[in-house]
């Protein structure tokens, strides 16, 4: 992957995470919030060293 594409992806990740936070804050966990999460995970997979981690979440 070229440095330029990696830079674009990292920038895109920030945009996506910001958009995702905003939707969750204003509308909760909607279908669109989940779609954004899919894009976030897809982008993370492409960025070297940005390891998509195990799906560990807080327990209830």
């Amino acid at each position: 992957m070229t440095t330029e594409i990696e830079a674009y992806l990292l920038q895109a990740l920030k945009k996506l995470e910001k958009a995702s936070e905003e939707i969750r804050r204003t509308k909760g966990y909607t279908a669109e919030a989940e779609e954004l999460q899919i894009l976030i995970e897809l982008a993370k997979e492409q960025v070297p060293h940005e390891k998509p981690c195990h799906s560990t979440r807080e327990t209830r």
Partner: protein
Amino acid sequence: MKSLVIQLARLGDIYQSWPALRALKRRQPAGEIHLLTRPRFAGACEGLTAVDRVHLLPTQQILQPLVSSSISGIEESLEKLRELTSALRSENFDQIVNLSFSPLSSYLVHQIETNGTKIKGYTRFSDGYLRIPDDMSAYFYAQVGPGRPNRFHLCEIFATLLGVDLSPPDWQAPQLPAIDHLGLPGEFVAVHVGASESHKRVTYSKWINILSHLRKLRPVKIALIGGSDEVAIGEQMAAAVPAGELTNLVGRLDLLQTMAVLQRASLLVGPDSAPLHMASLVGVPSLNLSVGELNFWETGPRSPGSVVLPAASEEDLPSDTVADMVARLLQHQRLPFATIQACPGTPSYTGLSRQVGALGTSATQVGAVTDEFAWQLLKAIYQGDPFPPPPDKWFLEGICQLIDVNSFVIETLQAVHEPKDLQTRAGLLDRGEEIIETVAKLVPSLIPAIRWYKTEKVRLGPLPFIELRDRNLAIQKMFQDFLEVYVQPTDFQPSVTKEAP
């Protein structure tokens, strides 16, 4: 029954899914099996006649708008994603089985499932939390992966998720292309020079040393295989060995041709990578150089006669040892004591180095004892086998600590009757969980049990308050039942009397 199987991992994982997919087709010949995979690895579906339709996750197309400078990049990417998810949703699958165990796949499953779809594998709850609907996936979450004590092979794990039993016909070669034009010798050893991840690879210089030692022991013809990324190492090796000894096929074959070459080989020598699993399908034994942080129990070779040489790095893999093993396998000679060999059934390997032997003070022997105890503990927790005797006094001390803290957590939960009670007690409950985590760090032999406990908590979904409290209580009580096994009067005797390291 219309099934979608999601396999978004790499080539090797797709090949390890073949036996389970074939078993599913064997069990439901009239059923329809769809497979979702990535375009880059779709070649591993060629020849897999059990699958009726392959869907591709077009990652590049989906992400392309995001890497352009367009402001509407996110919307365009979402549109492309929706094309895929709505197309899959409209298939109305009866079941979706997620063999990928990743955050991405869990969100995709939740997007695709419809009312009434039966789900196995990771998905999501309506509030976005991870949902682990079945016990096999819960086991995977808690116990599978490098450094963990699991000994079930991925092939069996996938089969369990698909609800099928494997049998020998599930491992067989697909229809393969002719390869006479390659001019391969009558008898040869296939050597895979690469691996998908650098930490698994064996370097050029190591391969040259291995071949040099092998030449002295037993002259043999070699066929090098590998992908286009490995062309350079293939050329280096070809230049370094005597003429006529080696056929360099690196970067020249597609996947089915590679499988055809393997079918003709007497043996495959190579790291954990796709050709190892291809060799399992075509029934050719492998000498698996299992280098790096891997769990060979999960991803090792399955053909009869296969051997695993695990090593933390290639420095721990003496070239003469590898060459000696190749020569012995080719000549069907007796293998050295404690060699790890493939065997039928589960677990899929036998080897005295992994069994409890005479106890000493070396780290290797302590490690072997710890591994064996952890495995026996897993079988007790998940399969109802007898609980193994405690490995040392530290384990018992850890059990006592956990009983104290878990009893406290149970009492605290029992005092919670409404949300305001939880608010005042949340800090205490969090502290209890911290102590449980700390015990796990101090007593590693308790880790498998604590991971089982924590995974059961992760599996809780969005529930009404009282029901959530009761489900939490039930888990704490189940944990208490396990802990009390080791403090009730039994015939347990500590199996070691040494100090813990």
